[in-house]
């Protein structure tokens, strides 16, 4: 197709949030070089916050003029806006909860904040991508930035190991994704999702076998990025070893973005062979929930436990995908938003109590938090209740909506097993509640510093968000349902 050399202004406008983020990141790099090594870098963090907030405003504003951009490589629709807002919000919460952690570890550098912006920009590309190559580019931008963030503490062996594992295995899995993209291109002669869908739907379209193979290969890549079983084993190691604010970030933002492209690809182009991949997703969902929940039962490290919990939560979202309906897609969207908030919140609490060198990351280190820092304990209680799925929290509604969608699609056994799973899950979250409220303060909680302002903002914003999603889910759910309908099903 004859591409216009100069894209129309509206097309550039549709890309505005990512432009802001990329420029912001570059600006921070420059400023970093200009300021001396000795100066505190919090100001650079403020710059990144400003860029993120500007991007958030832009993302909402761009929603006013939906449509394709850059020869249909990107597509701004409700779905894209929804996830853009989610990933940018995760970025904001991450920066807020990073200040104190970084200065405590003596790693308060500008590059960290720049990397957050780049990673979020990559996720923005992912969620707006309407094109396989763009998906891949977005994924790599986001992933590479995240790999570096995981290895931020250069002197910390655990963080290095975590980063290296994440990088090696991540690249390995991305290769599979790329193979899948190549297959798909070979089968259809295009990389544009809309065009692929048209080809697939034609009577003389590509053979289902070829499509199935492409779907399988892409599933490996997506499965890895969302830490679904059987590609979950990297997650516990990486989540545990990475600096806690980074763990919070990568368990929410990149994961949500990966789910976004997963949903978009499978719901648009692979929908015609949906009945073939549904059993596989079924197995993935069940395996993720079961492995995640049961392995979490025996953990003693909060970060590792939350890593397994995040595998289980990926399983719940896969249940929604398995439903193969608009309601299911909307349920997945809502759940991911709620999940991002509650997970970032829970990790922010860990970032607060862990102390220098992450000395206190055991579940027992939460002992006495209830009496020493009631407000922090209350916030963590809200996050845990949401992770359990107690009503009046976003987590409850997300689960409710997902399993409702599953049952409507006649996934009876998956629903039953999923609900049983979530009953088991209550146990290990509860253990944290018990320790927090029912134990005398220990070494970790006796010497807690006052809650820094940034962390406070992150904690209470996410807690409020979780409650908001639980008590007034209407408008967000409605938006998700509207956006899910945009896929031509």
């Amino acid at each position, binding site marked *: 197709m004859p591409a216009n050399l100069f894209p129309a202004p509206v097309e550039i406008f549709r890309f505005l949030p990512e432009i802001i983020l990329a420029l912001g990141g570059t600006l921070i790099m420059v400023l970093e070089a200009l300021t001396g090594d000795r100066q505190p870098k919090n100001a650079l963090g403020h710059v990144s916050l400003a860029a993120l907030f500007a991007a958030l405003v832009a993302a909402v504003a761009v929603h006013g003029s939906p449509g394709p951009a850059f020869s249909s490589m990107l597509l701004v629709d409700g779905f894209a806006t929804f996830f853009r807002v989610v990933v940018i919000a995760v970025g904001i919460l991450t920066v807020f909860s990073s200040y104190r952690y970084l200065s405590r570890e003596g790693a308060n550098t500008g590059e960290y904040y720049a990397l957050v912006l780049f990673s979020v920009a990559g996720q923005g590309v992912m969620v707006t991508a309407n094109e396989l190559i763009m998906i891949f580019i977005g994924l790599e931008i986001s992933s590479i930035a995240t790999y570096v963030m995981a290895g931020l503490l250069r002197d910390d062996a655990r963080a290095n190991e975590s980063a290296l594992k994440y990088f090696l295995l991540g690249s390995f899995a991305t290769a599979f994704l790329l193979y899948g993209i190549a297959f798909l291109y070979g089968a259809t002669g295009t990389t544009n999702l809309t065009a692929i869908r048209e080809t697939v739907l034609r009577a003389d379209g590509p053979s289902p076998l070829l499509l199935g193979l492409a779907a399988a290969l892409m599933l490996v890549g997506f499965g890895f990025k969302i830490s679904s079983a059987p590609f979950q084993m990297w997650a516990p190691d990486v989540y545990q070893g990475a600096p806690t604010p980074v763990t919070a970030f990568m368990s929410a933002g990149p994961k949500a973005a990966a789910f976004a492209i997963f949903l978009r690809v499978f719901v648009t182009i692979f929908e015609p062979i949906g009945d073939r991949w549904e059993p596989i997703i079924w197995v993935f969902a069940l395996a993720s929930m079961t492995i995640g929940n049961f392995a979490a039962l025996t953990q003693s490290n909060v970060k590792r436990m939350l890593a397994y919990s995040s595998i289980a939560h990926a399983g719940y979202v896969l249940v929604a995908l398995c439903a193969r309906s608009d309601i299911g897609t909307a349920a997945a969207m809502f759940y991911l938003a709620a999940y991002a908030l509650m997970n970032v919140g829970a990790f922010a609490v860990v970032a607060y109590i862990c102390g220098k060198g992450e000395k206190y990351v055991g579940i027992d280190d939460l002992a006495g938090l209830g009496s020493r820092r009631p407000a922090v304990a209350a916030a963590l209680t809200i996050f845990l209740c949401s992770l359990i799925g107690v009503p009046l929290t976003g987590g409850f509604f997300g689960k409710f909506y997902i399993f409702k969608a599953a049952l409507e699609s006649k996934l009876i056994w998956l629903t039953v097993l999923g609900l049983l799973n979530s009953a088991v899950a209550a146990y290990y979250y*509860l253990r944290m509640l018990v320790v927090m409220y029912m134990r005398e303060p220990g070494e970790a909680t006796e010497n807690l510093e006052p809650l820094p302002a940034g962390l406070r903002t992150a904690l209470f914003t996410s807690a409020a968000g979780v409650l908001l999603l639980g008590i007034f889910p209407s408008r967000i759910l409605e938006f998700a349902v509207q956006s899910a309908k945009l896929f031509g099903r």
Partner: protein
Amino acid sequence: MQHLWLIPTLPLIGFAVNGIFGKRFPKSTVSAVAVGSVVLSLLWAVKVLAALGSLDTPHVEQYFTWFQSGDLRFGFDLQVDRLTAVMLMVVTGIGTLIHIYAVGYMAHEGGYARFFAYMNLFMFFMLILVMAANYLLMFVGWEGVGLCSYLLIGFYFLKQSATNAGNKAFIVNRIGDFGFMLALFLIVIHFRSLEFSVVLPAVSGKPEETLNLIALLLLVGATGKSAQIPLFVWLPDAMEGPTPVSALIHAATMVTAGVYMVARSAPLYQAAPLAMEVVALVGLATAVFAATIGLLQNDIKRVFAYSTVSQLGYMFLAAGVGAFSAGIYHVMTHAFFKALLFLGAGSVIHALEGEQDIRHMGGLRKKIPVTYATLMCAGFAIAGFPFTSGYFSKDEILLAAHHHHPWMYWVGVVTAGMTAFYVFRCLFLTFFGDYRGHHHPHESPWVMTGPLAVLALLSLGGGFIKIPQYLQPVLPREETAHDLSLVVIASSAGLIGIALAYYLYVLKPALPDQLAQSFRGLYRLVYNKYFVDELYDAVFVRPTVTGSRTVLWRQVDVGVIDGIVNGVGAVARIAGGVLKLIQSGNIRSYATWVVFGSLFLIVAMGLLVVNTAAGGAR
């Protein structure tokens, strides 16, 4: 608008105030806020009910839409009808009395503000539960009361047993909630709504299997909350909580939520005969089973806990044989006498500075006369002594059971006899004979004895509040012929039980031990509660834990990071650096996993595609 929302919101405000500022308040302020908020809630409920008059049709107030999708709307809607009115009065009335009592009981305990904050929060959720106009909001209350129950059971958190008991309660209830959730989904799918006013009238058109399934799943939820077989194991352990908690949550209100839910869903159950039969059988079996365990317990609160399980069984029996109003009638009378039994037991424990074992009591009749007198009232009521409150409600249930299946009546009668026996065994051991302990018993202050006196009056006279007649428009019942001989038999069973207890524990106190010796095997089986806890532990708990440990943790989760962080010689391994980590094989083994996973995936996808294609071609 009657501003129904104020009824639950007032305790919620109490919770917020005490939860945030309670630590800085003096105890008197905390008590004033906690008790005051519940009293106001009671008064407002009375005002609302007075204004609504006869309540021939439900009064519904819609506040805001929780969420909506398509034609499906879920709202924060509260409703009051006659059934809710009864529950409202029980919850706020008994709640007020127990809050007042707790002011005295908890006076010397730590965490005073925390205790009352949780209690008020419980009241909020319990009121939401009984006032909800749809199943979803009911579920909010349902989960909320569970959470508060958990927090309050574990209130004495320095005791490991208390924490364990709290956990057990929470987990068992999650299993029940799993059934409840599934039922909710099925209702949404088949009725496109969760409003009582939409779902319940629509049951007539639905297939019976569906209704049976929904009703049975709801029953799973109810067995968890109301401690019925097989999920009853948490309630006796829940007695680790402070006694006012046992009285309010684990006797008078929360545990009856299952009965309320079944009664609320009465039209659904009536259209599901199989589920009804199961409800009746579960109820009856629980009633007998728990009563036999109660015969031999020595902890005063545990005796009453098993008695609660047993009495809840009666309520389910009532619902199962179609006498829903009799079930609710018993909910109310049971709330009177069981709250009294627990509060009285609390007063005894308070007098003996924490002693709970009835073998170390005795002769307390003269030392704590008010507690003695009131507890005897409760004892007569639960034994079904003629014209006490328990007599009326139990007769109502037993007659309905007889109408359904005569054998159920006879089993119920035997259970009634056992109930009378073990309650009076407990009372006689506590108050008669000689004092066997070494404390200096003292009567409780008036804030504690006052509520006891009120509850004693209600236990004796509360049966004259004719609930079944009042509920007739909401929960119609079949008129059963009032067969006087059946009533006489049932009451005599209670009298025989009392007499037997008197003979064994007052007249011939040496006899019980000899009997225990002669029936040693049976004695041990019952004394150890039929080893149900051990059985569950061996069948469910242990396999899960060891399974997770060995299979998932050892095989799947072999992360190197675990080794470094927890292992010995960590420094040496860190020094080995990054290179060593790669060589340790973990990354390679992970990559192997990815390869196997991918192979599995590709093969599976290939097979699926080929099979489906072949199937399509056929």
